[in-house]
C-alpha cells in the first residue's frame, strides 16, 4: 500500500492568508451576512480599529473581500462584503481543518503499533 503523498496532508492546504483566528472570524461573519460594517466587525471580534484595518487590508489585497464606503448624512460608514473567492477560501480552510482533526482522531482510535500517518 503506498504512503499518502506529503501534498495530500491537510496542513499543506491551509491558506496563510486566512489561517488566522481574526481573519477566519471576519470571513465567518461575512459567510452568514451579505455585508457587515466596520463597527460591527470590530465589536464582534473584540479588535481595535487599527488591528481590524490591517486584517481587512490583507484580505482585500488577496481578493477575498470588497470594501465600500457609504455616507449616512455626513457620517461615513465602511461596509465589508466577502467575494466569491473569499467564500471559497473559507470553505477550503474549514475542510482542511476538519480533515486535520479527523485524521488526528482516527489515529487516536487506531490500536497501538498501527499508527502510520500522524496528523
Amino acid at each position, binding site marked *: 500500500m503506498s504512503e499518502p503523498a506529503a501534498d495530500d496532508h491537510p496542513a499543506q492546504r*491551509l491558506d496563510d492568508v486566512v489561517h488566522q483566528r481574526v481573519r477566519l*472570524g471576519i470571513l*465567518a461573519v461575512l459567510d452568514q*451576512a451579505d455585508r457587515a*460594517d466596520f*463597527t460591527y466587525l470590530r465589536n464582534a471580534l473584540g479588535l481595535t480599529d487599527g488591528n481590524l484595518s490591517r486584517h481587512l487590508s490583507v484580505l482585500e489585497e488577496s481578493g477575498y473581500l470588497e470594501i465600500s464606503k457609504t455616507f449616512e448624512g455626513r457620517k461615513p460608514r465602511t461596509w465589508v462584503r466577502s467575494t466569491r473567492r473569499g467564500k471559497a477560501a473559507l470553505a477550503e480552510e*474549514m475542510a482542511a481543518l476538519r480533515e486535520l482533526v479527523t485524521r*488526528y482522531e482516527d489515529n487516536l482510535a487506531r490500536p497501538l503499533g498501527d499508527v502510520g500517518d500522524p496528523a
Partner: protein
Amino acid sequence: MTNAHASSPQDAANLLRHVESVRSQTRSLLRAFWFPLVVFGAITLASALVQWAWPGAAVGLFWALAGPVGGVTVGRFYQSRQLRLGLSRPARPYILTAIGIFVGAFALPILTHGDLQEVVSTFAVAAGYLAFAWLERTGWLVLLALLMAAIPLVVLAAGVDHPGAVTAAATGAALVATGVLSRRGR
C-alpha cells in the same frame, strides 16, 4: 498560498469552534422573523373577517392590497434593523419566496373548487414558510409550516361553515403566536 507550517489538531479544533461560534452568533443576530410573522398574522386575521363577511372574491382583492403593504412594512423593518446593527443579509431569496407564496396563493384557488378552493391557498403559504425555515435555519418555522398545512385539512374534515374564514383565523392566530413566542424565546 499554502501553509508550510503544520497546524496542530488542537489549533485546528479551536479554529473550527471559533468559526462555528461566530457563524452562529451572526445568524442569531440576523434572525428577526418574529416581525413578519406578527405583521402577516395580523393581516391574515383581518382577511378572516373579510372572508366571513364577504365570501367570494373580496378576499383576493384584500390580499392584493394588504399583501404588498405588509411586504413593504417588513422590508422597511429589516432595512432599518440592518443599518442599526451594521449587518445585513441578502434580501433576494426572501423576496423570491414571498413572490412564490403570493403567486401560489392566487393560482391554487383557480385550479380547485368547492370548500377546498376556500382553504387551498394556505398550502402555498405553508410551502413558502418551509422555504423561509430553510433560509433562517430555524425549527420554529418548520413547525409553523406543518401546522399551517394541517389547519385546512382539519377544517375540511370537521366540515365547518365558512372553512376559508376559519382557516384564515386559525392560521393568523398561529402566525401571531409563533412570532410572539419566538421573540420571547430569543
